[in-house]
């Protein structure tokens, strides 16, 4: 690693743009979050107090946190299980990988079109339920909407995570595995003693990318249900968009800062947890 300033030359252009479109805007929003009145008359914590008492903010935050808390472990475990299966049955290999990856490439528009037919009150799923003699479910206008969103997230991100895990699995020395087998270690023992410890290093990146992608379910939720979907899928992104449109800019600023602080803490904690992770600087 060369310790010199030509590094700056390479990042100069990027840094300029990041300053204009990300860093300065962030400082701007930080300033706005502490000022009340349109001209920033007084400085204080009023905005934060206000949004913490705001019903919509509470619901949206709760939903977003709940979504991440449900999805990330589910995605990690499911994708790890499938990738261990693929790893131990290499013959399946590429075809299975491809079919799990394809959803990444399916445009959100196609997904949304299918949703409209599948989950409508008179849609395909209710038709099936009805013909089997069950009661129909109001999918998009009930708490089921949350789980549809979870399903759609898993569907889209499974393949990506399988690839990430397979990469980590590929670093295990096969001789270690077979030696453990010879010593009579059970499947579970091998999983907990060999496989899991060796994929641990990649986990920081896997989790960071999984959280990053979890924010993108807003697209499906918005395109299917608009600005005001059912309460169970009213996410912070809906709320911020609505505040933006209603010119509730002080609230928007405070909400944005609060959310970003939570996110930053989360990233720092994750990084601490996996200090030896892949992105060592």
């Amino acid at each position: 690693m060369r310790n010199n300033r030509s590094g700056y030359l390479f990042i100069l252009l990027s840094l300029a743009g990041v300053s204009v479109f990300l860093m300065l805007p962030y400082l701007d929003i930080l300033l706005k979050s502490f000022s009340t009145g349109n001209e920033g008359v007084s400085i204080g914590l009023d905005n934060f107090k206000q949004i913490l008492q705001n019903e919509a903010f509470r619901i949206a935050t709760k939903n977003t946190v709940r979504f991440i808390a449900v999805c990330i472990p589910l995605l990690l475990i499911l994708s790890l299980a499938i990738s261990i299966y693929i790893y131990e049955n290499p013959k399946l290999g590429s075809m299975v990988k491809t079919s799990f990856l394809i959803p990444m490439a399916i445009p959100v528009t196609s997904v949304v079109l299918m949703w409209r037919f599948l989950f409508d009150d008179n849609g395909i799923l209710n038709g099936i339920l009805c013909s089997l003699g069950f009661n129909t479910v109001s999918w998009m206008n009930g708490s089921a909407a949350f789980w549809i969103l979870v399903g759609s997230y898993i569907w889209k991100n499974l393949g990506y995570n399988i690839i990430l895990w397979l990469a980590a699995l590929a670093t295990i020395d096969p001789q270690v595995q077979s030696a453990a087998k010879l010593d009579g270690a059970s499947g579970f023992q091998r999983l907990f003693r060999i496989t899991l410890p060796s994929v641990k290093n990649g986990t920081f990146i896997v989790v960071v990318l999984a959280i990053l992608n979890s924010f993108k379910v807003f697209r499906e939720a918005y395109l299917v249900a608009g600005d005001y979907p059912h309460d169970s899928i009213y996410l912070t992104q809906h709320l911020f968009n609505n505040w933006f449109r209603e010119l509730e800019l002080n609230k928007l600023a405070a909400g944005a800062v609060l959310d970003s602080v939570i996110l930053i803490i989360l990233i720092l904690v994750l990084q601490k947890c996996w200090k030896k992770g892949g992105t060592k600087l």
Partner: protein
Amino acid sequence: MKSKAGLMCVSFFAFIVLYPALFILIGSLMGEEELASNLAGILDKSVDDYVSWSLIPKECSIESYRQIMLFEPGFFVLFWNTVKICIGVIIGQLLIAVPAAWGFAMYDFPLKKVLFMLYIIFMMLPFQVLMLPEYLVLSRLGLLDTLWSVILPGAFSTFPVFIIYNFFKGIPEEEVEAARLDGAGEFRIFFSIGIPAGRSGIAAAMILQFLEYWNIVEQPMIFIDSEEKLPLSLYLPNMNLENAGIAFAAAFLSLIPSVLIFRLGQESLESGITATTIKR
């Protein structure tokens, strides 16, 4: 026995995972009458029936595609908007993010760690956090309600820097040092060692970003007002289902480039994703 159950499980998942693409294709090939009768439950609320759907259309027809070609010129305008956004963002990122990733991966300079951490944080922030000040910046630059309002900030996104960085990190330092001893300049090293070695990482980042901007919703929704400047992803979902056939055909047409590019780049994509988890 155990592996048979596993195989069943995996095939079941694989089917679920692939079905939506098939669903769109089938819908786009159904004739007008078949669609109308299948979808009666949704289209006409007075009809008390459910949507019925079959695995294959009774009669294949390309009528929907013909109609979209002849009667929906708007579709192609928006299709090109999406294409322009994708191309603009990707060219921008190639010029901006690739050198930046190299700078972060290969040099030590004051504040590097802090800056890179900031890049990771900005990569994670949902768009809505910065939408207000970004709106003000774009308005000052006079870019609101143009495709540039999506392209320009997109060109500076930090995600590709992060992905490509992990790739450049894998280049052995001795190789770079050897080139330096031979008298190669820093830019020369970047072009003759960095770019070739990082090729699949760069390709992976670009494919991921293509897929991202092919589906862009948040930015155009706020920054673009004129309907004829919207990308496809904002227009299609609002289509009237009276023309379900056209909606299906449009959805399938927007799926083709996406799946095609994905398949073409799948290998680099996989090796690119791989590089992000492995410490070398």
